[in-house]
Structure formats: structure tokens, C-alpha cells
């Protein structure tokens, strides 16, 4: 579309793009800057963009103030389990949904759409009561169960797209060769699906790693809480906070999902788009 774009138009476009870049980047730059500033600079009445004497003190202090390592461990356990279990149970169902357009698939697709609209408060109260009866409050196992089901709709959405991308003829060829249904699935379809399955698992991981609401309600003691919940402890009751350690901890909590997201970004956007554009 670059043809006959006038010089003034171009200039305007670059100006607009710069505006977007500033808007998108400045909070993030500010977070990083604050994380590396020594206490003296943070207390200054005229804050600067770039720390004059960058320091790691805030990181050390953050680890001293809150059980960050333990929280990161809890988050990691919850997110890995949720990612793995989610794709283990979602892949077979997504396969059926993609290959058999029957009533079950229609119902499942309908549920995927509707579940996007749940206000979670309607879900969390009964879940809280159910998990309480099972003695799974303040337990990561209970949280993982919730995360698995919570990531399922989008996982199914993505996986159905990946399955549809595998030509059904390949499977038919295998079954003509005498392979059984499950055999075909495992030896022909699964390897082709592998990249999509990995992307979906990572997406479920990120979702669980970032999740806050369910963790806030279901986890009571600091030893059990996940990173996002522990982060909010840095903000005092009156909203007062030690800005440096707060920024340092927040920055660290973002890194894993940011790195993974960069890695699978194309696949996620592709999966999301399949839904947004077609469906």
C-alpha cells in the first residue's frame, strides 16, 4: 500500500507512530527505571527518567521483605501443572471437536464462547464452597484444578484450529494402511500437532502465572500464595508502598511470561485470530 503515499502523509504517520510508541513504552520504562533507583533518588522531589546511580538494592530488599522465592515456586508449580494438565485433557477433546461436527462439538463450542462471558464471582463462590468441603482451600492442588478448567476454553479454541490445519487425508491414508483410530492419532496426527500443543501449553502457563483473582480468594497463608498475590502485599493498607522494592519485584514477576510470550507470540496471535476472524 506504500504506493503514492505523499510525503506529508508519511510524516504524519511517523508522528502518530511515535506517539503510540511513547504511550506504550513509558510506563514500562518507568517501572524499570524505578526498580534500579537507589532510595535517595526515589525520595527526590524531582524524579529523573534514568537512575543516576543504578543499584540492585531494591531487588535485595524485595526478597527480604516478602517471601518472593517461595511465591515464585508456588506460581511455577501452579502454572506448569496447569499448562501440562490442560493440554493433556484438551487435545483429545479438541481433536473430536475439529473432526466431528456433531451435537457434542456444537455444545462444546457454545460453551467455549459463553465461558468467556462469565463474571467469575458467580463461579468463585460455589468453587470456594466445593473446594472447602474437599479441604482444598489454601492448597495449590485446588488452585491448579481451577486453573486447568479456566484455561480450557481458550486452549480448546487454539487446538481446534491446529487440528483443522492437519489434513484429514493423512489420517485416512493411515487408516487405509490398517492403523487403528488411536494409533493413527498418536503416530500421525500428534507429531504434526506438537508445535501447536506446546504453544497452547505455554499459553496456559502464562495465563496461570499471571492470574490473580482465584489465587486471591483461594490461597490464605503467605507460604501458599502465588507471586501476583504476594506482590500486592508490598502495597500497604493505606496504599503506601516502598516504591523501589515494589518496582523490583513487579519487574521480576513479569520476566518469565514476557520471555515465553515473545517466544510463542506469533502462534498465540494466530490462534486468537483464527477465532476472531473466522469462527
Amino acid at each position, binding site marked *: 500500500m506504500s504506493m503514492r503515499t505523499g510525503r506529508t502523509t508519511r510524516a504524519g504517520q511517523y508522528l502518530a507512530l511515535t506517539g503510540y510508541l511513547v504511550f506504550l513504552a513509558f510506563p514500562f520504562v518507568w517501572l524499570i527505571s524505578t526498580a534500579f533507583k537507589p532510595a535517595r533518588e526515589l525520595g527526590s522531589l524531582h524524579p529523573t527518567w534514568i537512575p543516576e546511580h543504578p543499584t540492585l538494592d531494591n531487588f535485595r530488599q524485595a526478597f527480604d521483605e516478602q517471601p518472593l522465592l517461595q511465591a515464585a515456586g508456588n506460581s511455577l508449580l501452579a502454572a506448569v501443572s496447569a499448562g501440562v494438565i490442560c493440554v493433556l485433557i*484438551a487435545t483429545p477433546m479438541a481433536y473430536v471437536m475439529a473432526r466431528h461436527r456433531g*451435537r457434542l462439538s456444537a455444545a462444546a463450542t457454545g460453551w467455549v464462547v459463553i465461558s468467556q462471558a462469565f*463474571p467469575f464471582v458467580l463461579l468463585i463462590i460455589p468453587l470456594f464452597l466445593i473446594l472447602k468441603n474437599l479441604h482444598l482451600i489454601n492448597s495449590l492442588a485446588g488452585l491448579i484444578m481451577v486453573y486447568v478448567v479456566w484455561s480450557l476454553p481458550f486452549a480448546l479454541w487454539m487446538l481446534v484450529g491446529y487440528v483443522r490445519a492437519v489434513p484429514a487425508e493423512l489420517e485416512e491414508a493411515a487408516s487405509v494402511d490398517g492403523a487403528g483410530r488411536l494409533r493413527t492419532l498418536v503416530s500421525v496426527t500428534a507429531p504434526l500437532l506438537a508445535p501447536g500443543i506446546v504453544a497452547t501449553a505455554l499459553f496456559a502457563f502464562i495465563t496461570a502465572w499471571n492470574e490473580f483473582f482465584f489465587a*486471591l480468594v483461594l490461597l490464605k497463608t503467605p507460604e501458599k500464595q502465588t507471586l501476583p498475590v504476594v506482590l500486592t502485599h508490598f502495597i500497604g493498607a493505606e496504599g503506601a508502598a516502598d516504591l523501589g522494592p515494589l518496582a523490583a519485584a513487579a519487574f521480576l514477576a513479569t520476566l518469565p511470561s514476557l520471555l515465553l510470550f515473545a517466544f510463542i507470540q506469533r502462534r498465540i496471535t494466530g490462534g486468537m485470530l483464527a477465532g476472531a*476472524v473466522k469462527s
Partner: protein
Amino acid sequence: MTLATPAATERTGGRWSGGRWSGGRRPGQRRKDDGRGGERAARDRATWFLVLPALIPILVLSVGPLLYGIGLAFTDAQSGRTRSTQWIGALNFQDLLHDTLFWDSFRIGLLWAVGVTVPQFLLALGLALLLNENLRMRWLARALAIIPWAMPEVVVGIMWRLVYNPDAGILNETIRDLGLGDGRDWLTGFGTALPAVIVVGIWAGMPQSTVALLAGLQNTPHELHEAAALDGAGAWRRFRTVTWPALKPVALSITALNFIWNFNSFALVYVLTSGGPGGRTRLPMLFAYEEAFRYGQFGYAAAMGCVMVAVISVILAVYLAGRLRGGDDR
């Protein structure tokens, strides 16, 4: 698509499963697959084997609790009470009707959802159009536009608290530098709190919208643009006659979904203001959360959830109707 009516099912004794007839005969069909029923049954078993691992958790931890939650809305369920829970009919809903605090939060929720969704869509559309051009910093903008998507909402909230901080925040410092005054305490001011959190909401949700719109743009046929340009159509005309019609289905989808997500959002505002000052940013989800887990009013909070679902269902229905009509147009 032909549907099995109950009458047809009775007549032949067959049943639908997985979109196929199993057992029985299709009306008017000769019994010709005799002896293959065993294979069909094995196929059905295999299907169930594949579906159940996901279906059971969905039913137990999602559909079940949702129905349970709707049921709770008609009871006086409370936390930490020894007396058993009573069925109280629509009493919770009657109370809700007169609960001005709830309707205040509902109004704030709608303001917030519209205030975030509409500007977010317009900004995302602009960014998507720019990213679709052959510009030099495009890769950087794309990378940056993704960041908010990957961040935990709690971190987004914390990050913006640092920006909005009255003394050490960059926003007030910039205002001071530009000589526009001393700046203010954005998140605790009665008039500024809601606009301030709305800006954060817009920032946080832009990536998804931008990516979806960009993909929509890239799906529009290039030739149409060129033809329109050759016909002498200006940029605005080309947008209106070529780009927008192709983009409309995507735009409709993401706007409806974003509205629903925003209306239901929790973490961002919880971290930024906890609903303050004086309830000026208390979204319905925050209100229901407090009602349920601070005051232990499970039944009442569930009723709030039901009202939220009802409103969202109406919006979803309007959106689906619009989308179906849009499908007929093309």
C-alpha cells in the same frame, strides 16, 4: 443441515450421536450396514474416551459451579455460620433492587466498560492501520504493543501506580516540567480516579484489539485498495468503502468481547485503587468480591453475579444478532 426431530427418533428408534445416526435406521433407509454395528459402537467408545478427560472437569468445575452459583442466589448462604442455609426465593434480588450502592457500582462498571472499550478500539484501529503500512519503526511498535498483553494485570496496576504516584511519579514530574502546575493525586482524587484507571484499562487491553484488527486488515484484498486508489479515491474514502466493510466482523467481535471482559474485570482496579476513593472506582466485580469474601454474604453476592450475567447476556445476544445479520449482508 437436517435435524432429527423427536418424532423421527421415535419412528426409527435411532439416535443422533456425533452428527451421525447410530443404531436404528434413517427414515427411508434400508438396513444395509448390518454387522457393522460393533465397529460403530467401538468408534463411539473411542470418542467418549477422548472427550471425557476434558468433559468431566468442565462439568464438575465449571458448568456445575455456575448452576450452583445461580442456585445460591436464591438462598441466604453466608460464610462461617452454623445455622443451615435457607431457600429464600427472590429476596436477594428484591434487596438488590433497592441497594443503591450496587447500582452505583453497576453504573461505574458500565462507564468503565464503555470508557475503556471505545477509545481502546479507536486507538487500536489507528495503530493497526499504521502497522499495516510500510513504516520503519514497525517492528518496535509491534513488539511494544505486545508487552501489556504478556504482563500480569497485577504488575500493570503496580506499574501505573508508580506512574501516577503524586510525588515520585513521572506523570506529575512531567506536568511540573511543562509548567502546567503541581500535578495531583490522580488515583485518590474523587474526580480523577475513574478517568485515571480507564487510561490504564485502555493501555492494558490495546494489544489484543490491535493484533486482531491488524489481521483483519491483512485479510482484506490488496487489489481492491489499488483499484480504489486508481479510481481516485482518497484515503478516507478508501477506508470507508474498502477497509471498513472487510474489517467490520472482526471489529464487532472484539468490541463485544472487550466490553464483556472489561465489565467483568477485577485485578487491575483492585491493585490501582481497591475501588476507592469513596467507591468511585468500585466495579461490580469488586463490590461482589467484597460482599462475598469480606462480609461473607455468599447468597447476596451470587445474586449480583446473576444480574451481571443477565446484562451481559443481553449484550451478547445483541452482538450475535448483529453478527448474524452482518453475515447475510455479504
